[in-house]
């Protein structure tokens, strides 16, 4: 058997390994015959007999996925071990990577685990220091880190995804990574001295670290298992550890020994009473809260509050404000509202003496071109607003509540029911008012001309029945 020497670039030379393995394995050159050398000048394949390219290797996914991780490991044997793996897989052991108990696979998995851990620790334990201003007045930060394996290229994108808004450099003994707000570049090794030796927030951070430690739970073994000492010299807060440990016993002893002292503060009875009575106590107070709250649906310029007198016989609950309502901040002023006004007149109901409101207080829409297209609120969104609607109706105290359409029905009853089946008198659960269900006037607007007239007559008829119901309730 002829001996072969393969030289790869220093660090994690995945491309070099890929080229090499694609030639070695099809050429039938076994792992025993190859010596892998990394870190020398990149003179790949000095030997002439390896210039014949073989067919591409089809490796199982688990094997292909393992290679890039192991290549990052600092163990000089990594390429030889991977060669053995690929050799055996190509030799018929297709499922080898699934046999984690195989000594070779086990060793490679341990190497992958070590690399993954090192990556994780670099993401966690790297500390930036402010390093003056970067280009265009941007902030600039720098960090020194000593990774165990060749992971800089793999680790850096995490930082550019996290810190795109300032410039930074990460220096390591093997190489450096730089971010300028647009692109990530890699350069030669750095020196610890090239990173500022202090930062304005380090003392505060160390104070935080010290304060969040609970001396009654001291467990040094657990700390060292997760944050090995080799990382400490680059962690500013680690300087506090010896002092914290030294003082822990005394601090706990003092806590336990100290007898409870008499409290200095008296019971803040008035503050407690004020706290207990914090629910809004009037419709105005409730409306102030609604007005001040963020929309719980996307869109909306302002909350649209209910309108009408307290104690109105009938309250109408619609779905949500539309485009016009959102602009004017008043309910039922758009086309559907105008249709409702007309129907109320024909049914002999005085709009001014009813209470008009919506299940959802904000306009939910999607912008298409210049138009804001109404979007139906979801069940969750309706539920968000339910608490407000219930309080609102409790203050208004109507005799009859009319649900206009399915969303109002859902808000009032908590159930999703087709309107065609629910239409007419209804119960919305254990409520002090009677319920009635009909369609939403915007439904009428969407009907074709012929059908609209009939449906409108039915709608007016519904409103009359609701008025009768209210008269009955008043009499009762």
């Amino acid at each position, binding site marked *: 058997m002829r001996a072969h020497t393969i030289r790869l670039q220093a660090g994690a030379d995945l491309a070099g390994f890929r080229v090499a393995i694609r030639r070695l394995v099809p050429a039938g050159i076994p792992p025993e015959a190859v010596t892998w050398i990394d870190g020398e000048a990149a003179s790949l394949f000095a030997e002439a007999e390896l210039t014949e390219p073989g067919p591409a290797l089809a490796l199982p996914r688990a094997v292909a996925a393992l290679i890039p991780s192991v290549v990052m490991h600092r163990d000089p044997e990594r390429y030889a071990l991977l060669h053995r793996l690929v050799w055996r897989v190509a030799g018929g052991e297709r499922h080898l990577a699934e046999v984690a108990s195989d000594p070779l696979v086990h060793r490679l998995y341990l190497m992958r685990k070590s690399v993954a851990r090192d990556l994780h620790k670099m993401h966690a334990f790297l500390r930036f220091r402010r390093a003056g201003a970067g280009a265009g007045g941007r902030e600039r930060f720098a960090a020194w880190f000593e990774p165990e394996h060749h992971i800089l290229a793999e680790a850096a994108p995490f930082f550019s995804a996290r810190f795109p808004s300032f410039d930074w450099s990460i220096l390591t003994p093997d190489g450096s990574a730089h971010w300028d707000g647009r692109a990530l570049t890699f350069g030669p090794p750095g020196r610890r001295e090239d990173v500022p030796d202090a930062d304005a927030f380090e003392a505060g951070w160390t104070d935080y670290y010290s304060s969040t430690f609970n001396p009654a739970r001291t467990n040094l073994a657990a700390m060292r298992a997760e944050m090995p000492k080799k990382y400490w010299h680059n962690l500013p807060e680690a300087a506090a550890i010896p002092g914290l440990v030294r003082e822990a016993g005394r601090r706990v002893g003092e806590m336990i020994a100290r007898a*409870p002292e008499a409290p200095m503060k008296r019971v803040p009875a008035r503050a407690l009473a004020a706290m207990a009575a914090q629910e809004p106590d009037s419709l105005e107070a409730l409306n102030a809260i609604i007005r001040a709250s963020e929309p719980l649906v996307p869109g909306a310029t302002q909350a649209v509050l209910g309108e009408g007198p307290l104690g109105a016989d009938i309250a109408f609950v619609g779905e949500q404000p539309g485009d016009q309502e959102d602009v004017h901040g008043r309910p039922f002023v758009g086309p559907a509202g105008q249709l409702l006004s007309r129907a109320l007149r024909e049914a002999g109901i005085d709009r001014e003496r009813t209470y008009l409101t919506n299940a959802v207080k904000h306009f939910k829409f999607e912008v298409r071109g210049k138009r804001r297209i109404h979007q139906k609120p979801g069940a969750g969104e309706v*539920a968000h607003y339910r608490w407000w609607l219930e309080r609102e109706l409790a203050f208004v105290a109507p005799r009859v509540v009319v649900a206009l359409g399915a969303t109002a029905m859902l808000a009032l009853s908590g159930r999703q029911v087709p309107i065609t089946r629910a239409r007419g008198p209804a119960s919305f659960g254990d409520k002090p008012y009677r319920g009635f269900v009909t369609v939403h006037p915007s439904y009428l607007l969407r009907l074709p001309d012929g059908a609209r007239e009939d449906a409108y007559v039915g709608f007016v008829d519904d409103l009359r029945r609701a008025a009768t119901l209210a008269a009955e309730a008043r009499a009762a």
Partner: protein
Amino acid sequence: MDDALKKKLTVLADAAKYDASCASSGAPKRKAEAGGLGSTTGAGICHAYTPDGRCVSLLKILLTNYCLFDCAYCVNRRSSNVRRAKFSVDEVVTLTVEFYKRNYIEGLFLSSGIIRSPDHTMEQLIRVAKTLRQRHGFRGYIHLKTIPEASPWLIEQAGLYADRLSINLELPTEASLERLAPEKDGAAIQTAMGQMGERILQAKEEKRRFAPAGQSTQVIVGADASTDESLIRTSARLYDHYGLKRIYYSAFSPIPDAASILPSQSPPLQREHRLYQADWLMRYYEFSPDDVAGATESGMLALDVDPKLAWALRNRDRFPVDVNRADREMLLRVPGLGVRAVDKIVAARRHATLRLDDVARLTSGLKRARPFLIAADYAPTRLTDRLDLRARLAEPPRQLSLF
């Protein structure tokens, strides 16, 4: 960073350290937008570990440690004589952003004593989260401790900005709450949890952003007479009914300026550890609450053996288990075999017959597993029948804390 701010930070970090939750996991993966700051990786990152072995993942602070409530187990109760401080919204935002930029933290865990009213307090917490998200384009992790007595619409808004919301149960029974936390209302806490669970579920269905990392809670262990079994059953109910992501068990810790109705004593850290192990058995090992209850001795988990081993010792007739044949569920019951080891065994045995050496490479818990399993070249010699098996496997008695 000026001295006044540093002083506040010392007081308000110290005041928050008894809250066990510090995880930054569970949020969907996010990257910062141009000009913004922060990302989440899904898995959570611990940026440092303190000498108590617990990680620092988030800037965990209180907005203020003034509090109207007088909960006996809490160092910040109104009758406590501790030093008080209060951050402004902008101060918390500055600290979070500056610490984050230096890669000290994954985000913010913000809680607060109750000042003025629960609603006022909740509004302040929301303002911090909202400012971070809107003014700084912050896409890192935010966990808000909600005030259960605050109005529901405020909790809704908190969910728009936070990754995780939590409501601390603190004590597992109404009676304990009554005695130790007179202003707290157990029913209100559970109602708030229930509502929050519903909202999170609905938002998921509607693909809306609302506390995407779910909700969690904390129960204090050792401040009252609750048994481990009742704690575990409470937990199972919370996971089941409210879809909680995590339940943190926090060993009642001696606190400076302790209330006189609590005994000054060393914290039952080992008990806390066993409860977490029992919790894992339910979440990852397909154990039912009854199984866990079956591993307790008059309601308490053993301190010298872990709950899985305790269960196995009580159910010796179900062992030994053949690693080459047993189904996954039964392999998960073998002491010393973790979920990953079991998955590797199941994958490997499709292509190979496992010997004891092979199993040894897949787990670090072989010593505990040995008496309970059969491999191609190994069968325990009636080891499971030995009377002294427990003593042979139990952890040697040791000093639990350094003092």
